[in-house]
């Protein structure tokens, strides 16, 4: 059967050519144009001269921008780490749930995808803002505690000071973790679900408790799944634009916000292009690292 479609070249071409043309026209060509721009200079409001200069890259590597790159990596890394810490037990629980529960839990994990990112982010603002649900709950608890203390004849607590949960780095990380958690849980789940249960039983049988079984057997065997989860969480988090824009404060700029400003307000396409490509090279490095981990996992026969 495999031979027959290889021989039917016209049929194969009919299926393969349209998507290839699409990719070429709307992905590779625009990407090449942007790449060319990154070696250009602004000579007028809408004209760019492709001079082959490296000035844009030199500027992108200035401390100001390096700092923002670095900060984006830190925030994306922190987001990924938190997603891993929260997502691993969740994935483990789903993998060990009964088949019926499993379907429902997976649905719950994927449910946020059905809602627009903008709506989800504004919902988060409603939760985090100064008169939002978290502060509302805290205030209620505070006032009750205060009332209880008066009742017991103690000094009542002072006036409730709402926490500043919005428009700072904390809000950005919370938002990014919230948005990216499904990206972490799904690959982890698929790795844990595939795992031979008797390996865990063997570990228990040989005298290991549940924690040691997870650390010594489950985590090492799930390493390829963890690597792909980390990668597909880290990459979009690194290029996140909407979340830092809406939830972040003045000092919570991530690299995508800077790139956006170059293309729009600053109207400096060549510089924006150079920043974009630096971001993409960072992504490639992350993918290469993941591929390395994957290959090591495959060599171990998992």
């Amino acid at each position: 059967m495999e031979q027959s479609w290889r021989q039917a070249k016209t049929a194969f071409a009919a299926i393969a050519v349209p998507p290839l043309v699409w990719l070429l026209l709307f992905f590779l060509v625009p990407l090449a144009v942007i790449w060319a721009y990154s070696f250009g200079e602004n000579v007028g409001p809408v004209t760019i001269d492709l001079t082959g200069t490296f000035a844009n890259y030199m500027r992108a590597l200035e401390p100001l921008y390096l700092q923002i790159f670095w900060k984006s990596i830190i925030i994306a890394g922190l987001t990924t780490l938190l997603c891993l810490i929260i997502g691993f037990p969740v994935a483990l629980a789903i993998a060990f749930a009964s088949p019926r529960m499993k379907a429902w839990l997976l649905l719950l994990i994927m449910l946020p995808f059905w809602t627009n990112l903008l709506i989800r982010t504004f919902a988060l603002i409603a939760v985090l803002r100064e008169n939002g649900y978290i502060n509302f709950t805290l205030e209620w608890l505070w006032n009750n505690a205060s009332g209880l203390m008066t009742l017991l004849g103690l000094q009542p607590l002072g006036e409730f000071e709402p926490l500043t949960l919005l428009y700072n780095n904390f809000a950005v990380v919370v938002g990014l973790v919230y948005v990216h958690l499904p990206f972490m849980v799904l690959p982890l789940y698929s790795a844990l679900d595939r795992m031979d249960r008797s390996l865990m039983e063997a570990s228990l049988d040989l005298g290991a408790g549940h924690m040691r079984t997870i650390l010594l057997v489950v985590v090492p065997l799930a390493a390829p799944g963890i690597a792909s989860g980390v990668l597909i969480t880290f990459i979009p988090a690194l290029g996140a634009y909407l979340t830092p824009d809406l939830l972040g404060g003045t000092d919570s700029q991530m690299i995508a916000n800077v790139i956006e400003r170059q293309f729009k307000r600053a109207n400096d396409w060549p510089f924006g292009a150079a920043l974009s490509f630096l971001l993409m090279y960072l992504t490639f490095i992350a993918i290469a690292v993941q591929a390395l981990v994957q290959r090591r996992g495959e060599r171990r026969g998992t």
Partner: protein
Amino acid sequence: MTDAAPATPSNAPAPKAQPHVKDNAIIRFENITKRFGKVVAVDNVNLEIREGEFFALLGPSGCGKTTLLRMLAGFETPSEGRVLIDGKDVAPLPPNKRPVNMVFQSYAVFPHMKVADNVGYGLKMDGVDGGETKRRVEEALDLVKLGGFGDRMPDQLSGGQRQRVALARALVKRPRVLLLDEPLSALDAKLRDQMRSELTSLQEKVGITFIMVTHDQDEALAIATRCAVMNRGLLTQVATPSDLYEFPNSRFVADFVGSVNMFEGVLDKDEQDHAIVRAPELAAPVYLDHGVTGAKGSTVWVALRPEKIEMHKRAEGQAAMKMEDAPEGANVVPGIIRDIVYLGSETIFEVELDGGRRVKTFRSNLTRYDQEDFTWDEPVWLAWHACSPAVLLS
């Protein structure tokens, strides 16, 4: 039928002494029932396993034998009843605290650890110090003939070697009982035969009680000192391999263990020293040299093993031959050879009786030239001794 029938039926000989088997019950299942939802996997099982036995739990797939084993290991909790190891109820003990270790059907060798780390895993968990761990790991690997393989990764080993790693990993912890879940099912035929005898000698060497789960009756008969046959969650019979084969207590056991010709009949005569069963499919009455504990006129089944049926030439119109230990006309029936399967060491003949019923019989090929030269469509007598048929009441 809740309890297992007595291990030795009335006419079975006394069991042989087994020097390495002690008298104490190392494992005891008391009224064990296990339900999965509405399905009863194990139904009120009572079973004692003595220290030093190589015990086999035998039965078709889904009979509950693996569930019983997993309850010993602690991976399943009984719905009712108690499991005792060394007289102590193990219900409160999680798997990692039980004095038993298991060899899994898939071996479950950790793929990310070297062979030595696999074998030493259990010792590390017990906090055994490095020096002793190293010594005991080497000892265990030598025991399973894998000396010098410690630095290999599991994917560099064959299936048989991986199984030895799993064995060493379990034995190195010196468990009170070693549990084996279908240990030979994943090996090819040649290796399986070799591992059978190795398992037996290994068990004698280490002196640990082994409990094996298997669906393969040959395997159970060849390895075990005692077997329990299970069917649909019930313990059907617990007996030594030879008793299981020669003195089955039910149609299920007779049919599951080995090959058998089964005839339904009516108990016609039941005396102290003999009994007669009349089966419609057999032209002659079945004469037995022992009494049967059943009501006269009740329905019974006669089980005849193929190798216990003699075959003789028959000329048309010839009077029936007489068996020396049965009255005239009993235990001899006429038939015609319909099928011959040559297996080298023996030949299987399928003989059609007068009523159309086909009966299987084996003949060992004792000489290189078969003097009698039985052939297709040849009329024969089938005859058996009065002590050969097993009479089954259920």
